[in-house]
């Protein structure tokens, strides 16, 4: 039973993630007054990438991308079967670090700058992610997702500050403007495609699929803020996820890319104010 569940998670997660990306592209296009691609376009892209001739700049750098995918999948599995939320965060960090190392391993100037920026982004958003996990623990007395979703009161009641903070740093994780300076889906930036500059074909497809997993992982966190043992909360959670996603798309289209200085400062200040204060206040009542 568990194996079927895990298999379903591994297969379905990227499908949902890919669909979300498709919807994103359509909505973005409409906001910009364009027709936009079909919803299934991300899948067409990935299939096309897989058929391309494999070329590479050296023997080592794609290895990190595969390893990264494996640990991101592991993160998704841990979260969705109801595992420990902090362990999931650590596994995701491992996946992200491996991805960054891939950028370093290609030994190309653009990739390296991308890696550095990605690392800086991680430093910016990591405190908030950790505090969110701890916030859930304080609110629901368990680190396990399976326990968090069985609560009477949704976590957002205890953790409104955490929620806002998490939405703020979600922009990093979804690679949206104003915080998409390590690599963006739009290739015309000053560092070309950042970390992904030297990847092509299958390897680029793998990176795309990894991102789909990461999207779902990010929205699982959003969902957890609303989940209770009441079945209706599932619907509420999903609607909340869509609203947050819409908000992120709106921000993506409404803001230009910021400098890294601003990203680091703002993320840390938001974490310190919203995350820490929420935690301090909650610890008085719990």
């Amino acid at each position: 039973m568990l194996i079927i569940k895990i298999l379903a998670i591994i297969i379905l997660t990227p499908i949902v993630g890919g669909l979300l990306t498709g919807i994103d592209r359509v909505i973005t296009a409409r906001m910009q007054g364009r027709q936009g691609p079909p919803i299934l376009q991300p899948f067409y892209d990935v299939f096309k990438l897989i058929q391309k001739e494999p070329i590479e700049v050296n023997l080592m750098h794609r290895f990190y991308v595969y390893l990264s995918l494996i640990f991101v999948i592991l993160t998704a599995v841990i979260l969705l079967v109801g595992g420990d939320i902090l362990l999931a965060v650590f596994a995701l960090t491992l996946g992200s670090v491996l991805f960054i190392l891939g950028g370093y391993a290609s030994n190309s100037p653009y990739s390296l700058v991308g890696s550095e920026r990605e690392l800086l982004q991680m430093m910016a958003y990591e405190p908030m992610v950790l505090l969110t996990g701890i916030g859930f623990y304080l609110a629901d007395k368990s680190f396990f997702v399976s326990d968090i979703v069985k609560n009477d009161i949704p976590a957002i009641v205890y953790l409104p500050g955490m929620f806002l903070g998490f939405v703020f740093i979600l922009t990093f994780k979804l690679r949206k403007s104003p915080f998409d300076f390590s690599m963006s889906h739009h290739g015309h930036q000053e560092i070309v495609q950042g970390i992904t500059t030297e990847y092509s074909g299958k390897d680029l497809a793998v990176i795309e699929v990894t991102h789909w997993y990461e999207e779902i992982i990010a929205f699982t966190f959003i969902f957890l803020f609303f989940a209770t043992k009441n079945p209706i909360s599932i619907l509420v959670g999903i609607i909340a996820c869509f609203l947050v996603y819409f908000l992120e798309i709106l921000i993506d289209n409404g803001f230009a890319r910021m400098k890294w200085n601003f990203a680091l400062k703002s993320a840390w200040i938001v974490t310190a104010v919203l995350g820490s204060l929420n935690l301090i206040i909650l610890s008085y009542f719990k």
Partner: protein
Amino acid sequence: MNLITTLILFPLAIAVLTFLIRNDKIRGAIVTIGAACIALLAVLVTVTYFQNGITFSYQGEEAISYLIMVLEVLIAGYVITIGIRDKKYIVSVFSIIQTPLILWFELARGHEIEVAKDMVYDKLSGIMVLIVGIIGSLICIYAVGYMRDYHHHHKEYAERKSFFLSVLFLFLSAMFGLVLSNNMTWLYFCWEITSLCSFLLIGYTKTEEAKRNSYRALAINLGGGVAFAFAIVFIGIHYKTLELSVLTSMQPEAAVMIPVFLLALAALTKSAQFPFSSWLLGAMVAPTPSSALLHSATMVKAGVYLIIRLAPLLGNSPVGIAVTGIGCVTFLLSSLAAVTQSDGKKILAYSTVANLGLIVICASIGSQEALWAAILLIIFHASSKSLMFLCVGSIEHQIGSRDVEDMAVLAEVSRKLNLFMFIGIAGMFLAPFGMLISKWVAMKAFIDSKHILSVVVIAYGSAVTLFYWAKWMGKLVSGSNKKQKNDHKLSIHEEIPITIHAILVIVSCFAFPFISDYALIPYLTELFGKDAVIPIGTSDVNLMIMMLAMLIIIPISFIPIYKKDKRRIVPIYMAGENTGDNETFYGGLGEKRKATMRNWYLTEYFDSKKMLYIGNIIAVLILVLGIILLIGGLAK
């Protein structure tokens, strides 16, 4: 003479032997065999006593105490003389205060006090003995090979290898004594010996810088010693005891907190916490084996060991809160300072200070989970940090630099060192390696005991830690695709200890559930008088071990895929101006220019001097606040 006495005296014998023998080959053999024997002895002691522990006193306790007094007078005489000779009067002053004080106390009061247990070997000392015995002796073996290269590269320094190696062994002996003594005057004696040893090691090269830094280390540690001496006198006079175990089992009433505060102060100086951290950062001028010893197995661990012993009295007391605060400041600010460093040894030094801060937070919170994390942190930090120091030492000899920016070429020179360095760094911050497991439990312990500030500090600190380690790792992997050009031979004395260390780092991650079951849980159960449980659930432990297995198996399983899958290699992208060699591009005037790539250091934000300055000020304020609270508690 039982095994434990042998364990303390044997390194002393080796120290004397290495000091006397001037022939390189014979001395090398003696050091190697002696160190191996020490490691073996440590294991033997563990096998014999670990299950039940042992406490005992010596027949000729009085004679030993007199011998120690004589030695203390000799050491004090030495310190006072060199202090006056080199115009570093502060060390003389500290010595003049503490030694007569202790002598007076011992002669006037001390002999009336009955000491039931001079030596205590329990599970905590057992773990410390293993760390000191195994990691310490590996470092000694490494020193044989390293020092040969060192004097080959640095002809300007006078060769005093015998002296250096012998001090290393003296250090080990003092460390064993320190973790095994329950009689506080003996503990204090060993404490002072380690201070003296670190002074001698740091000052090895006799340059101006080495001299300055060694005196700073001596001054700060002797300052801690003064606090220690006052604590002993206070306890002896007020409570008529000299036993550490009796002190730690007292009720945490206001008067008890005075010696506890003094002891904690001594521990903070030894563990290089703010505002006393400058000595450890300056200790890097010494040859690498001594840095490895100071940073991993000995010295700094002595401080946190004492805080763990005092843990039952700290908790939410004013002293406990002050110590926790200092740990928080140290962890966060020295992590930030590490970001701006590019010198490998400096990064390691700041990271040591930071991690000790974390251990201090855990130990001073003193809950069951927190202590679990603290002891595990000591184990994992010792093995990873020692591995990295030894690697950096060898790297410096191989590529002629210890700057992280230069390590991109390491893969061309020595694949092995590249891999071992990588393992060491991974051990410091990545899941599923040891340090992360401990940090995870620490986080849980902080939130369970409602130390929200510590939670926030650890969240930020971990993110910063990730930044500075990952960019170092990046430099290591960036050269990994290049062909190995010229393999300098690593001497066998360097290669074997480094390899064993790397294996220890990985194996200890697999073994942590066993360490927990057989050492930590029984120790904590006994300490708290109620059943302790492992703070991580079984399912999580299994997942961690699975992740570790994946990290080992997957790279190996990639090899056949790589063999089969031949791809076209293309040049990297350089905006169309690549000259074809992936290193140079055509500049604006058509000339070839080299593309240089450097990491980010964010000096404008986290300048290390500024961080240290802020950290020291906050730490001093916290100490003052602690003293005020303490006095307030007494007045009540």
